[in-house]
């Protein structure tokens, strides 16, 4: 008798396909894969020297925003790399906030008081929400810094303080690399930390890890059975997947989701119109999204 894992490996089989229900969430790899940090769990291995994807310029983003308006996109997210390394980032946000709500995923290191004041002014001027999501991977320097880099805990907290002082209440994003972050007790520790920073309405998002990129080296790669097969997903059971309602734009085209940008097979086309079809969930990371019910959205 063979184990379930062996059966799955032997069976091979085709992956289920996910249809695009509606293009609600549009992501931009606005910082490329260039980052001022080199976190050990980064699923796309961003670093100061990683130019797999380059930054997006304002004109490139605006071209896609025109298409997005025609297609009725509901919300926009910006990530990298570190988005605020991109000199066009604030102009991009200004253009975006005219047509919809925006979220920026940042490591918090470039959030000085002047930038935070400008971001608060952009938020104030818009009809729509602006969310800043700041990544943190520990309750203190001892737990955070081995993941995100020496000295980062204090610098991230300084960025959060600057946001709060400007009147912006960030969503703190923690991955489950941080021990117990996913438990109620772990969340309570983060809430306590944020209250100590003077945040009376703490906001927190916990994400599981994707065992790809740098994380594959740190925590281990996926096993071969960790893949979705046709028939393992109930009919209509893929609506919870973000790829059923999102696309990701990088300098090299449109990808199915924010996770697979370092997989050429995750690319769907050159424009949004090229990418409105279905996608095969054949990557191991697709298994994580399905099993953990992950959404990269806030």
């Amino acid at each position, binding site marked *: 008798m063979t184990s379930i894992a062996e059966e799955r490996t032997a069976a091979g089989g085709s992956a289920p396909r996910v249809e695009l*229900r*509606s*293009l*609600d969430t549009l992501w931009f790899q606005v910082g490329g*894969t260039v980052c001022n940090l*080199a976190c*050990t769990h980064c699923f*796309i*291995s961003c*670093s*100061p*020297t*990683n*130019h*797999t994807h380059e930054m997006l310029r304002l004109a490139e983003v605006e071209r896609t925003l025109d298409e*997005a*308006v*025609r*297609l*009725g*996109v*509901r*919300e926009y997210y910006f990530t990298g790399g570190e988005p605020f390394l991109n000199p066009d980032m604030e102009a991009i946000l200004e253009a975006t906030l005219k*047509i*919809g*709500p925006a979220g920026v995923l940042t490591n918090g290191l470039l959030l000085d008081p002047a930038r935070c004041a400008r971001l608060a002014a952009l*938020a104030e001027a818009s*009809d*729509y*929400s*602006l*969310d800043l999501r700041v990544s943190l991977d520990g309750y203190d320097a001892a737990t955070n810094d081995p993941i995100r*880099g*020496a000295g980062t805990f204090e610098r991230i907290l300084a960025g959060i303080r600057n946001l709060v002082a400007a009147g*912006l*209440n960030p969503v703190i994003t923690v991955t489950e690399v941080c021990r117990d972050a996913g438990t109620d007790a772990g*969340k309570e520790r983060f809430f306590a930390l944020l209250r100590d920073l003077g945040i009376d*309405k703490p*906001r927190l998002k916990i994400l599981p890890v994707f065992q*790809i*990129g740098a994380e*594959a080296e740190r925590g281990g*790669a996926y096993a071969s059975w960790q893949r979705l097969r046709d028939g393992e997903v109930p009919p209509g059971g893929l609506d919870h997947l973000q790829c059923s309602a999102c696309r990701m734009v990088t300098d*090299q*085209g*449109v990808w199915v989701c924010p996770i697979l940008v*370092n*997989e*050429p*097979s995750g*690319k*769907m*086309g*050159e*424009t949004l*119109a*090229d*990418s*409105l*079809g279905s996608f095969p969930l054949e990557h191991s990371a697709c298994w994580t999204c399905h099993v953990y019910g992950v959404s990269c959205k806030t």
Partner: protein
Amino acid sequence: MSETALKKLTVHRGLATWGERLVPLGAFHAATAAAGRRLAPAERAAAEQTYLRSERDATPVEGPWSRIAVCGGVYSNRFGLAALLEDAARRGAEAIYCLGDLGGFGPEPEAVWPLLRQGNVRAIQGNYEESLAAGREDCNCGYTDPRDNHFAALSYGYTARGCSPAFRAWMGGLPHRRRVRVGDRELLLVHGSPRRINEFLFRSTAPVPFLEVLLDQNGCDGLLCTHTGLHWHRRLPSGRDVVNVGVIGRPANDGDTRVWYALLEARGESAGGLAVELVPLVYDHPALAAAMRRERLPEEFVATVLTGWWTTCLEILPARERAASRY
């Protein structure tokens, strides 16, 4: 700087990360250039048209009316519902519609049923009715925060215990959407959104281009929804209206104990076609609070009734709405 740290900062020079492999940048760029579809301009236009196609449903159109009142979640607030029936009648509403979520939050859920029938309220199902009628174990409210889910489970359990099989069966027979004509305008009435019963349409996260496409796809001149608990109205550049009518079950998280509903009135096209008024409603909120305490419902809920500020279900608020919130 340690050797490991230095390596981490320089490892990608000239190289791309392809999954876990490092390959020359040119190899990755060549692979991505060949990947995906590259449609011709005419094919792109056709793909957009297919995506944007209208999905007109067979829902019969009610009316035409010249003036209607539309309320959102009742949340077992019979005092709010009684005030609504009186106010709508006083303002000359010819019909009263309710967009679902009859139960939850408040006391003695079945007490709203006779009022709904007496007022001839035309209701649709919310996620609460759908869940109760199907015997689901949770309200399908769509929360992620454990604290929100704790209170949602508490109020769903209380409501489920307090609904007779007959009341549940009646809920299960309610339609999921209605189409209503007010003057020349055909309005689509849903609970969350036309796409999902528990989709949240908050003002700060329901942008104009999105709403225009949503109305195109559903072939209507206006959209009325609830589910978020917060009322708003947006007139689109196309001249159509989207109204979140709010709820009459609990206050709107603004420090005011009143609850809200919407009054819609036909106007000539030269006067905009439709007048939308969001109406604040005074009701006997101390009586509601007292009834909730008798039923030993959480003090957190009672505080909301007495102060106008939400104490639970805050995690789902977008940045803008959360900033305006006390908690």
